[in-house]
């Protein structure tokens, strides 16, 4: 087993996440897609931690940090979303263009 399948899987997941993040209307799904992209990154980190040029635990630790950041991001993101929903009555990303108006 080499690193290639893992990296390929991560690339697939990243691209799917990218597509979701840029195409979905619902802000929650956009957040989810971003999480998927972060996960793809984590997969890369862990795969490199095992099969990379310099195996070690740094990759795992960084993926832990990554997970932490993701959790914080989701918490704040959901909070913002709820606030936004309360004020605007929608979670549609395409409606969130007040900067334009």
């Amino acid at each position, binding site marked *: 087993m080499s690193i290639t399948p893992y990296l390929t899987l991560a690339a697939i997941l990243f691209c799917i996440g990218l597509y979701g993040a840029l195409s979905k209307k619902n802000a929650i799904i956009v957040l989810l897609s971003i999480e998927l992209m972060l996960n793809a990154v984590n997969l890369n980190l862990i795969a490199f931690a095992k099969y990379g040029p310099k195996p070690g635990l740094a990759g795992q630790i960084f993926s832990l940090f990554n997970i932490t950041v993701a959790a914080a991001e989701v918490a704040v993101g959901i909070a913002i979303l709820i606030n936004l929903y309360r004020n605007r009555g929608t979670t549609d990303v395409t409606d969130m263009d007040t*900067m*334009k108006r």
Partner: protein
Amino acid sequence: MANDFTSYAWLVPLFPLLAFLVLIAAGRQLREAGAYISIVAMLASFVLALLIFFERLGHTTDYTWNQLKWLTIGDFQLNMGFEVTNLNALMLVIVTLVSLLVNIYSKGYMHGDERVNVFFSYIQLFSFAMLGLVISVNVLELYIFWELVGVCSFLLVGFWYFKPEARAAAKKAFIVTRVGDVGLFLGMLLLFWYMPGHSLDFSAIHNAFSQGKIDPSIATWIAILVFVGAMGKSGQFPLHTWLPDAMEGPTPISALIHAATMVAAGVYLVARTMDIFQASPDAMLVVAYVGGFTAIFAATIGTAQNDIKRVLAYSTVSQLGYMMMALGLGAATAGIFHLFTHAFFKALLFLGAGSVIHAVHTQDIREMGGLAGKMKITAWTFAIGALALSGIVPLSGFWSKDAILSAAFEHNQLLFWVGLIAAFFTAFYMARLFFLVFAGKPRSDAHAHESPAPFTFPLVVLAVLAVIAGFVFTPFNGWLGHWLGDHAEAETANWTVMILSTLAGLLGIGLGYVMYGKNSVSRDIVAGNAPWLYTLVYRKYYIDELYDVVFVRGLRLIGKAFELFDIYIVDGIVRLCSAAVVGIGRLGLRLQNGQVQTYGLATLLGLLILALALAGRRFFHLG
């Protein structure tokens, strides 16, 4: 010799300025007192000018004071100040004297006018500007006053602004002189550019041109451009059309500005910058021919006009043409001398005309007649003025005209004959005017009577001057030429010229007498036999119409074209720009739609393009 008074020459324009300020500030409260303030101020100026003049007698070095720093551009420094030369001193006297007399005259003439104080304030402003022009130390200062004089002319011609003709005349005067002013301005720029040290001082100009430091072709250009300015101001052909129209202003104004002083400013300018012209024979020639042509041209028109002031106006144009011709022929002294005398007798004529108009309430000479009996002083003084203008011995006009004609006889026979014929016409129309107005029977039932003292006093003074002024410079008495620092050509009595000019004058008067005084020759002899000629002359050679067709219509056409150009091309470009901006904005708005996802997509595509470019670079082994 001391410069006790000369060093205070700057006070001469200052008195009218003070009067102007007082009149403007005090306004209506002054009422009749305004006129007295003006008269007192002018009197002060006149006295000072006279003192300076006497101080200058026998004195040929110029007095210059230019210590007022006005402008510093880099190394170049422009100073203001004043300069008193003999020419200036003479001009000061002429201007202050005529102005004083006109002020006195106006006191009576403008009596009862609502805006009399405004009128006087304008006159004071004009006097200030004119005097400032005369003592200007450099061309730029002169130009400032030059324009100020123009403004005053505009204000005074349009003084009765409720008359449409007055408004139109004011505009015409302003615009036509502006054409000349542009020439002067361009000439000034050229002068500034080519003068050593960019100096605009008259003394520097004198030095530069008399020593030939300037390329003659440049000098030609400068001279012609300066002359264009002078043409505009002095009503030389083809910029003469405004001057007759300017007669719509009050008659004292016509006397002051459009006969004696302002129109003479062009002549003065040329005389002042004579060095430039003398550096360029071609320019001299142009000046001479334009002056000559104007002289005969305006004189012929004068024979057919029916408006008393217009006749005088064309006469003025014609006489100015004489002066120019004299300058162009190099006879500066003769030109200035003619200016000097002309100022007196033309002012006299205008004031007389004003007196007549005041009496009969019309300007049409066909409706006048037989006034000699009712208005003795006016008639006599007018007669003196007319004779002086016609060049009858020994009145002042004879001597000055003789000086010009003899100069022409010496230098240019053609111009001599032109001048002679013009003199004939001058005598003719003056005779026509006099006989129609004063002789014969009254043609209207207007109850005319002699004008009061403020009218007659200046008339008498001017009449006396018109008689004696000529004796300062006769072929037998040439000190004026020396005094003016001219080339001091020895005036020798040229009997041929004298006889011919006197003959022409007498012939003109005689013809006028037989046609209008005795009615022994039909007045319509020309109109009947050659109606086209009469009409041509009567319509002033269709110059105004020509201008209307060539310039006004043409300009209007060009203006229309420019308007279309402006609407469709310039505005089109502007609209195109705005449309492009709006379009780009719309596009930007579509891109900048406030949606993160669109930005994200743009970022992704940009990243991909970069990545592909990088990959392609490696793929094609480009680097």
